[in-house]
Structures are given as structure tokens and as C-alpha cells.
């Protein structure tokens, strides 16, 4: 019965979304206040219905209801309960239901935290977001119903969740990523509302910035978690593959990053208005494009969802409607938006512009590389695959250019900065970073390496400029501590996120340059030496998991006479699907990871193994954490909080009014 309740709730949710897409929008033009005000209760209703639907599917998984086709295809009675829950979003249909749930969540969030905005604006924003939701409801109901039954002959046992996805990382990765993707629909909706009104002011920019920050922080975490998952679960020791699906998540992130900065200019200086709107449209369009690429099967990827051309046609039509429609609106309405605020080249605005240009170029390069195989195929140039060398060739120099400028942009003043003021702020950091860059490779590896020197110099440069700036800005007659407390949340957020970028660059550079990797054939008791570590394969055994059997090695890692770590890499065979999975053994550390994965058994008790020592690899994800934390801090800025407390009273009033309807 449960699945039918879920299905029914989904249909009801669709009906509410449809009302919400139409009524408030019409009301905003006819000046009908009740029609506009109904957007808020409808948002709540939509969220509740989506929740019911989602819970119904989750219960079907927990109860091993294999009469539901989707459950039978993606679960198994032997699956541990927590993977039964995460299996809900383990494949296409369920992940789309999660998408709809999160969309409803964002709509409800905007409805709840928008009391200080004019009703017309809120009504239009909620209406636009619901239009997007309607598209996804239709997609779900007509092409990807997760509640479809296999009756009258239900399966006796489920086919099991793809073993790659049976992992903690996957429990959290898709929800975070979708929070980011779908969250970008908020700035998108704000942009459309601004275009419809032909007006955008500082309040608009301030609130759009808040929502963009939130979505951006989620997207950052989601991508980082995906990279971390690929690192330890795929068993190749790589952390980024420039796979189409990774690119699909990275492109909206880059544009959202540009948007966060462009919005800052729009809020503080009123400049870059049409550019900001365009970025908001692009960021969400790239999210949708990502959804299209992953689910339509036009590109091959390690993340292959069950693909289906009918779904592809649907998303493409949806994409054409949403993106084409909004870009057309932009082309017509952005004409009337005046840009104001002149600035000189040595100003924060100018550096924000450079930031935006570099980020958009990076996005364009990735988009080109991702779609090139498709374009080549269509034009009959043969099957081509664009690999990491292409992406690295362009992307790495762009980031190494962006990062030093980022540090400067963080300390520049608006409109105009005196070179005489700026120079002392840069000379000392420059000196320190150059020396650090030159010395570090010698100290670390005993030989000079240009790549290391540049990476370290960039890192040190960003950190020193940043710390010096905090030190200077916190100078206060009332004492240092009070000085530090006077600085705003959005200032700290910015600095923290910039520090995160520097850490990620350092991690990526170091691990790319100094990873030591060895393939070897070992028997029990055999040893492999790699980068000063001895890996002793003490024991091979067979262990039994809940739904798999695994060959497991016990690897003791020695540095000299000292036992550093004991690792247990596994080669698992999942019983239901018969799939083989490599589970790497990882000894983590701030400055290096020890990474062992089992290859093929070679007979006579010997195994092919791969051993890596990966310096600083964790700094990549640490950097991402700092970036997301920075986004969070910026959201906690006083200027949002003050308003919220002031409006708490009216929120309660409204709730009473809503309840009495």
C-alpha cells in the first residue's frame, strides 16, 4: 500500500506545484494579494507531500518490498539497512525523487526566509521555482516513476545495489550535490523575477547573495565528497578524472563562484547588473545541462545512470524551455537595466571582473572539452575522447593565475586603490613567497622542481597576504581581540574560502608532482618499498561481509624500524551481482596518504598490488571544507541576522494568519 501512497502524494505535489507556478505569478501582475500570498502555504504543502512520497519509497526499501520494480533492481535483502536507505537515491528514478524533494525544500526555505522582501518579488521567485519543479514532477511521473510495481509476479530477491555505491560517501554525496544543483535554482528564480520587474536593487542583491552562498557551499561539499569517494572507492588512487559527470558538477560550481563575486559588486556598487543576471541563469542552466548529460546517455561516463533516449528528449525539451526562455527574456529585458558605478583598473571591481572572466573561460574550456566528443560524433569526425591532458593544460595555468590575483582582490578597495597604499601590502608577501617557493622543493625532495616552486609560492603568497590583511584590519584602539570581533562574518567568510582555495591548490600540486606509485607482484610475507616506506604484505586471507566475500591482505607499513600503519585492502566479490570491487587500504595523514590496492590474483598465492604514497592529498578536500565553511560564515553575517530577529514577530503573525485560512 505504501508505494501507492507515495505515488499519490507525488501526483498531489505536482498539482500543488502547478498552482504555485501559476497563481502567484498571475497575482503579481493583476495585483491580487491573496493569489500572491498563497505561494507560501503552497510551498509548505509541496514540501510535506514530497516528504511523504520520499518516505514511502524509503519504507519500501527498508521492508524489502521487491514487488516495487525500482526496489527490486537496486536493493537486496542482505543489504545493510543504511545502504537500503541510501539505495533510495542509488539510481535514476529515486535520485530524481530526491531532486524533487530537495527542490521542494528550497522552495519552502525561500518561502520561510523572505519576509523582508516585497511580496511581488517573493511571489514571482516562488512561482519560477515551482515552474522548474513542475518540469521535474512531470519527468518523474511520466518517464521515471520509482513506484512502479512488478505485479502479479514480484521478484523473490533484489538485484542488489551497485557495489560501487555501497559506501558511506554515497550516502551523503548525492544529497549534498543536489542541494547545490537545486539550490542554484534560487538565484535563477531571483534573476528571472528581476528581469520580469526590470528592476534590481541592493536588497535584491543582498538576498540573492545569501541563497547563492548557501547553494555554492553545498555544491562545494558535494563535489569534494565525490572526489574523496572516487579516491578511496575506485581504487585507482586518483581524485579527479575530468569525467563528463564530474565536469557536469564542476561547471555550475565555477559559474556559481563567479556569481558569488559578481553579486558582491552588484550589492556594494550597483555595477555588473546584467552580467550578474546572466551568471545566475548560466549557473542553473549548467546544473540542468549536467542532469541532461548524466541521464540521457549522450556521453559515456563511469557514473553511467541507466539511460534512456526518451528521458533525454524530455530533459532536452525542458532545458530548451527553461534556458532558452530565460535567455530570451534576458536578451529583451536586460536592455533596460542601467549599469552604474565607474571604477579604475586598480580597484576591487576590476579584480572581480578579472575573476569572473577567468572563471567563465575555465567553464567554457571544460564545456568544450566535455561536449567535444559529442560534437565530433555529430559532425562525423569520428569517436574522440578528450582526456585529462587537455583539461589540465588549460585549467592549471588559469587557476595559478587566478589564485595570486584572488589574494590581491581580497584587500583592494572599491572603486579605486592607490598604488602607494597597495605596494607595502604586497612587497613583503612577495618576498616571502618567492623565497618559500625556491627553498621548499630542496627541503622536501632534495631537488628543485619548477611546478612545486610555483605551487608553494602561490600558496604562501595567498596565506601571507591574507593574514597580513586580517592583522591590519583588526588593529583597533579597544584591543586586538575586540578588533578581530569587529570584522564581519562575510569578511571572515571570504578569507576562509580564499584560504581554502590556496590549500586545495597546494594539495593538488603536491600530489600531482610527488605521488610515488609502484606496481608489484607479492606473495605472503613479501615487501614493497616506495618513497621510503616499506609495505610488508604480512597475510592474505578470505573474509566474509554481509553481502560479499573478500580477499583481504594485511599490510604493515614500516618507516625504518617504526610501524606507521596497518592497512587492510580488499578485493570484494558481491554475491548477488557477482561484481568485483577493490577496496583500497588507506593510511591517512595530513602530509601524506599511504594507499594500497589489490589487483588480480596471479596464482600460487601471489597478488598483483599497487602501492602509492600521496603527499598532501588531503589538503584538496580540506581546502574544499574551508571554502564551504567560508560560505557558511558569510551567510551568518550580521546584516542577515539583524533582519531576521527584527522580523521574527511578523513571521509568527503570518503563521497565525496562514493557519486560520
Amino acid at each position: 500500500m505504501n508505494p501507492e501512497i507515495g505515488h499519490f502524494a507525488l501526483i498531489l505535489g505536482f498539482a500543488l506545484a502547478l498552482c504555485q507556478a501559476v497563481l502567484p505569478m498571475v497575482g503579481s501582475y493583476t495585483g491580487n494579494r491573496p493569489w500572491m500570498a498563497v505561494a507560501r502555504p503552497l510551498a509548505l504543502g509541496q514540501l510535506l507531500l514530497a516528504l511523504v512520497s520520499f518516505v514511502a519509497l524509503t519504507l519500501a526499501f527498508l521492508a524489502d518490498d521487491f514487488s516495487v520494480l525500482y526496489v527490486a533492481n537496486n536493493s537486496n535483502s542482505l543489504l545493510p539497512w543504511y545502504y537500503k536507505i541510501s539505495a533510495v537515491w542509488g539510481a535514476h528514478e529515486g535520485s530524481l525523487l530526491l531532486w524533487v524533494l530537495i527542490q521542494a525544500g528550497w522552495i519552502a526555505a525561500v518561502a520561510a526566509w523572505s519576509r523582508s522582501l516585497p511580496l511581488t518579488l517573493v511571489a514571482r521567485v516562488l512561482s519560477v521555482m515551482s515552474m522548474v519543479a513542475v518540469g521535474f514532477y512531470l519527468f518523474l511521473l511520466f518517464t521515471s516513476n520509482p513506484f512502479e510495481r512488478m505485479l502479479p509476479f514480484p521478484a523473490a530477491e533484489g538485484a542488489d545495489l551497485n557495489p560501487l555505491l555501497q559506501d558511506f560517501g554515497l550516502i551523503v554525496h548525492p544529497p549534498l550535490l543536489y542541494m547545490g544543483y537545486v539550490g542554484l535554482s534560487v538565484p535563477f528564480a531571483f534573476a528571472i523575477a528581476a528581469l520580469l520587474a526590470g528592476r534590481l536593487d541592493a536588497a535584491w542583491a543582498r538576498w540573492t547573495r545569501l541563497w547563492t552562498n548557501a547553494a555554492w557551499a553545498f555544491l562545494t561539499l558535494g563535489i569534494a565528497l565525490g572526489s574523496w569517494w572516487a579516491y578511496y572507492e575506485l581504487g585507482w588512487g586518483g581524485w579527479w578524472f575530468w569525467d563528463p559527470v564530474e565536469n557536469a558538477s564542476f561547471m555550475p560550481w565555477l559559474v556559481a563562484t563567479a556569481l558569488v563575486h559578481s553579486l558582491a559588486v552588484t550589492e556594494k556598487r550597483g555595477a555588473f547588473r546584467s552580467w550578474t543576471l546572466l551568471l545566475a541563469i548560466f549557473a542553473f542552466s549548467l546544473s540542468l545541462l549536467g542532469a541532461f548529460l548524466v541521464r540521457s546517455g549522450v556521453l559515456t561516463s563511469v557514473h553511467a545512470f541507466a539511460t534512456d533516449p526518451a528521458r533525454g528528449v524530455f530533459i532536452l525539451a525542458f532545458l530548451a524551455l527553461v534556458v532558452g526562455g530565460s535567455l530570451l527574456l534576458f536578451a529583451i529585458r536586460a536592455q533596460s537595466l542601467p549599469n552604474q558605478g565607474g571604477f579604475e583598473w586598480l580597484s576591487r571591481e576590476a579584480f572581480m571582473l578579472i575573476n569572473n572572466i577567468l572563471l567563465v573561460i575555465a567553464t567554457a574550456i571544460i564545456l568544450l572539452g566535455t561536449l567535444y566528443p559529442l560534437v565530433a560524433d555529430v559532425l562525423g569526425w569520428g569517436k574522440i575522447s578528450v582526456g585529462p591532458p587537455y583539461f589540465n593544460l588549460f585549467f592549471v595555468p588559469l587557476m595559478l593565475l587566478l589564485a595570486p590575483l584572488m589574494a590581491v582582490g581580497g584587500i583592494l578597495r572599491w572603486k579605486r586603490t592607490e598604488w602607494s597604499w597597495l605596494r607595502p601590502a604586497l612587497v613583503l608577501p612577495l618576498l616571502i613567497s618567492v623565497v618559500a617557493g625556491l627553498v621548499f622543493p630542496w627541503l622536501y625532495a632534495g631537488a628543485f622542481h619548477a611546478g612545486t616552486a610555483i605551487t608553494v609560492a602561490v600558496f604562501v603568497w595567498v596565506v601571507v597576504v591574507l593574514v597580513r590583511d586580517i592583522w591590519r584590519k583588526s588593529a583597533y584602539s579597544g584591543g586586538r581581540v575586540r578588533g578581530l570581533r569587529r570584522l564581519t562574518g562575510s569578511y571572515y567568510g571570504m578569507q576562509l574560502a580564499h584560504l581554502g582555495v590556496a590549500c586545495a591548490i597546494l594539495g593538488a600540486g603536491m600530489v600531482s608532482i610527488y605521488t610515488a606509485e609502484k606496481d608489484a607482484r607479492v606473495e605472503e610475507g613479501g615487501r614493497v618499498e616506495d618513497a621510503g616506506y616499506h609495505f610488508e604484505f604480512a597475510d592474505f586471507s578470505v573474509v566474509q561481509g554481509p553481502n560479499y566475500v573478500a580477499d583481504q591482505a594485511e599490510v604493515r607499513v614500516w618507516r625504518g624500524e617504526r610501524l606507521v600503519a596497518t592497512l587492510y585492502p580488499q578485493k570484494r566479490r558481491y554475491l548477488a551481482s557477482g561484481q568485483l570491487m577493490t577496496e583500497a587500504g588507506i593510511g591517512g595523514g595530513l602530509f601524506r596518504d599511504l594507499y594500497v590496492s589489490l589487483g588480480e590474483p596471479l596464482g600460487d598465492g601471489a597478488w598483483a598490488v599497487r602501492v602509492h604514497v600521496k603527499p598532501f592529498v588531503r589538503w584538496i578536500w580540506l581546502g574544499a571544507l574551508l571554502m564551504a565553511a567560508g560560505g557558511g560564515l558569510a551567510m551568518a553575517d550580521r546584516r542577515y541576522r539583524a533582519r531576521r530577529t527584527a522580523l521574527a514577530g511578523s513571521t509568527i503573525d503570518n503563521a497565525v494568519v496562514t493557519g486560520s485560512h
Partner: protein
Amino acid sequence: MKNLKLFIPLLIFVVLGLFLLWGLGKDPSDMPSALIDRSVPEFSLPDLQNPGMTLDQTLFQGQVTLLNVWGTWCPPCRVEHPFLVALEKQGVAIVGMNYKDMPEAAREWLADKGDPYRATFEDREGRYGINLGVFGAPETYLVDHRGKIHYKHVGIVDEAVWQQIEPLYNKLVAASEEDRP
């Protein structure tokens, strides 16, 4: 409408959309797993039970056959094996593909546990497995009397799985009998 450059983003998107639309009609992967509804790829591989002899795709002509991919190194194959023996007793023709395995060990396994296979060919390096689109063992393909693949199952074939495959199997058998004058 004096500022026409505002239309540039729209234009770019339209071009992009056209490419995506064309792209939808194409199969990007051409993964051999898409062999469903195509013929069994050609091969000429050693016959496990008759050393020195080879087998080829004509093995699949004239009779509806299950092609089972297995290896002695694969624990689930051990689980699956008794059911295959039972299936063969019901009169289902099964051809084995011994995948990435040692021939001696494989022959011993069949002598020990019973040989449900009408014939078994060796794919020692796993090359043919690539043509066939094998993910791992065990895997089972349903092939009709003309050598066309109709269905692929990844994982163990047991009673429950067979219940799903059987209707299609029976249909194919019926079709093959109609073909026979």
C-alpha cells in the same frame, strides 16, 4: 532592441541545444554490452574438454542456448553450478565460456561437480569477454537458434532468476521449432 549583443548567450545556447539534440540519436558508448539483439561475436577458441580442438560461433546455430560465463576462481560460480546442472537435466542447452581460468583446474571442477555444458570454450586472456561485454563472472546470455543474443543476466542464475528468463526462453524455443520444417 538596440543592444543586440544581449542575444549572444541565447544564440550560443541554441547552437548547443541543436548539437545535444543530434547527440541524442547516437549511441556514444557502443559498449559491447549492447549486443542484445545482435549476433554472438565471431570467435575461434580452444575447446576445454578436447584439447587441441577449437570451437566457434556456429556452436549456437540450430538450438536455443544459454551462454554461461564462469571460472573456478569465482565463488558465486560455485553457488550457481548445481542449478546449471539441474537446468541441463531439464533439457536446457548450455554452452560454457571458461573465463580467465586455468584449463586443468576447470576440467577438474567439471569432473568433480558435474558438467552441465554441451561444450565449453576457453577465454583465457579475457579478450573475447571484452567483445561480449562481460563485466565479471558469472554472467549468462540467452542466445536463439540463429545465434542472436536476446538477454543478458549479470550474476548468479538461480530458481528466481530462471523464472524471469524462462518465458522468453520458451518463446524462443517455440520460434525455433516453427523454423524447423
